[in-house]
């Protein structure tokens, strides 16, 4: 009974918007007089969440940054010693010509994977709009399955598919008459290895991209297309004039996210050939793993991490700037 009463009492209160403005104007001076505690209260209430976020996200970042200025090998780690070495780790990394080679490779790899996966995702999203419902549902289910597959499982399946002697790809190609693919190794060079890894990553990324972009496309009013049709616009013109402006910002966002994800891909590359042959498919995350975990030079690995963040920052600079501008504009 009490519960009912409270609701009844609350309902009329909610029906009195005209009474609110005076209450607020009357309340403001009062609160100012209430002192430091009242002013701090909202922030104090936010504090637990803020501390949790800083702990979980901020601290590891700070820790990596701090570690990059230390000599931290296995010995220092186990003994708990702190040895500061200033910029030595950065000098070591930047003087190594291999770092530059690997950094360039990583950027090119990321760029091609992002372009292909976002392009394919957009293509499928556009396709989904024109498919009959049951074909579209079949496609969506297929993509959901691909998306739900654990990374290591799909990587293993790809390894089997591309296996030199027993892989289904080589066998199929031989059946089709391309005899030179009998026993062909897809992992004989870095470019070839990274192409296979890239294909796998694109395959894994397409479902998310296609679904996100399709969600954006669905939101575009049908009348705009009808109007364009009446005006006699071709398919391409419709895309340029109607679709593109509507999904441009969404496309920017998924491209940005894809860049972040694809830049730090480690599992797939390592599982395929551990960055081989002869280190030719080594990317920055793999290099970081080799320095940090394989050689136990954690300080150097941390320096590579920081440099990776710098490179990512440079690549996504334009987007970040726009993002911040919009935010400020809104505020």
């Amino acid at each position, binding site marked *: 009974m009490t519960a009912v009463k409270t609701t009844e009492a609350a309902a009329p209160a909610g029906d009195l918007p005209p009474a609110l403005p005076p209450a607020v104007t009357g309340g403001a001076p009062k609160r100012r007089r209430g002192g430091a505690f009242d002013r701090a209260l909202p922030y104090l209430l936010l504090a637990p969440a803020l501390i949790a976020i800083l702990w979980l996200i901020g601290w590891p970042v700070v820790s990596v940054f701090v570690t990059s200025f230390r000599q931290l090998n296995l010995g220092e780690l186990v003994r*708990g010693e702190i040895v500061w070495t200033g910029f030595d780790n950065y000098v070591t990394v930047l003087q190594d010509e291999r770092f530059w080679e690997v950094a360039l490779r990583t950027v090119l790899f990321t760029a091609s994977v992002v372009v292909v996966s976002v392009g394919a995702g957009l293509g499928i999203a556009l396709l989904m709009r024109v498919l009959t419902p049951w074909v579209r549902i079949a496609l969506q289910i297929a993509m959901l399955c691909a998306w739900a597959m654990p990374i290591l499982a799909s990587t293993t399946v790809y390894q089997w598919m591309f296996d*030199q002697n027993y892989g289904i790809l080589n066998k199929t190609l031989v059946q089709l008459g391309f005899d030179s693919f009998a026993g062909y190794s897809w992992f004989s060079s870095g470019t070839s290895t990274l192409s296979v890894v890239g294909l796998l990553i694109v395959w894994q990324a397409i479902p998310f991209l296609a679904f996100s972009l399709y969600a954006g496309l669905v939101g575009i009013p049908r009348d705009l297309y009808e109007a364009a049709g009446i005006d006699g616009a071709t398919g391409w013109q419709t895309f340029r004039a109607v679709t593109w402006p509507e999904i441009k910002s969404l496309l920017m966002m998924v491209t940005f996210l894809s860049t972040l994800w694809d830049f730090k891909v480690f599992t797939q590359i390592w599982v395929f050939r551990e960055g081989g042959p002869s280190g030719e498919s080594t990317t920055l995350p793999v290099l970081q793993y080799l320095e940090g*975990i394989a050689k136990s030079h954690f300080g150097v690995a941390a320096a590579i991490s920081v440099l990776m963040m710098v490179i990512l920052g440079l690549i996504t600079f334009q987007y970040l700037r726009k993002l911040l501008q919009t935010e400020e504009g809104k505020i």
Partner: protein
Amino acid sequence: MKGWKGLAAGAAALAVAVSGCGTSTNSGSDAETKEITVWLMDGSAPTTLTDALNKEFEDANGIKVKYEVQKWTGIQEKLTTALASSTPPDVIELGNTQTASFAEQGTLADLTADAEQFNGGEWLGGLKDSLTLNGKQFGVPFYAANRTVIYRTDLLEAAGVAKAPTSRDEWIDAIGKLKAANASNPDFQALYLPGQSWYFLLSLIWDEGGDIAKLDNGKWTGTLDTPQAKAGFEAYKALYDASAEKKVPADIDEAKPQQMEVFGTGNVGMMVGLPWELAGAIKAKPELEKTTSAFPIPSKKAGESAPVFLGGSNLAIPASSKNADAAKKYLALLSSKKYQDMLAEGGAVPGTSKDTAKLQTTAIGKAMADSSPNGKVTPVTPKWAAVEAGQNPLKDALTAYLTGAKSLDQATKDASEAITKAMA
């Protein structure tokens, strides 16, 4: 806004302070040990041994043994992480080539003073060297093993090879006969030799008189580009090419897939392997027990066996172990004659007993005992670990040479330079 910033700074400071508290390290041993954690490697000690050992230790000391078997693949990384944690295992098994680097970093307990209770007088020389740094011992030898050529007696007989080859030429000849006799099976491998079996490559390089690296005035230089080492690479290619029509991929090693699993399929005539690999194949296919035997890796000189890489393991106690005293008792028990005999019986050269009578009873044990006096190791220096961990230049050179991606001169030159750089 000012308030918000101040609060954020305060929260950050708090987060830093609180998380900083957790990193203090504990060491030494507790009086009350209830359980010790023991990490041994996959295939190292037979289960009969570990079961009996753990039971005897638990009954005698009232301390539980948490016994965990680890895989060799990626063990370096796993040990690094475990040793840096606040609760490391109390007894670990280390490959003999890894021990020096872990000891140098101060991660292992100094056991020099306790050598007596670990049967110190009978330690296997090669292993003792590998765990000694600056005159101090940082472990206890566990066991050693070396590779031999494991073969199918029935298949060799059917192919008309009457006796085990005793020179490299005879060996290649036997491979050819084996291949011809099984030509109807497209998946048959006369010798299963993956492209990156680098321990076997070492045998061939040493047999030709070459080596991996040499030490001059405290500086290591890669020597894979010498004519002798190149001859070793050429011998590898000759064997690799002779083995089968359908070649084993040049970019995999003997662990991926496990060569014992491949041998267990029955489509393989020979493999260069360790006793535990044969045991694994027999476990998967019991009928192999009666039809397998082994001979030492033949030298290019007729009648001799090639030098072999003396693989093996040491046992160590992490410096940060909280149960060091109990761990020492465990090692002392394991070093006793009873368990060393069980190791020999299981097909390994025991680390703390000179008695190998029990080993000589099997064909593979005899082949191993015959070639083990010729055993060699990789450069004994903490710097070697950097070569072996991660991307091994020897493996890269083999793949590049076998696939034709690089010429022999280029592949060996690159590998030599990579080794010099890694050991600098």
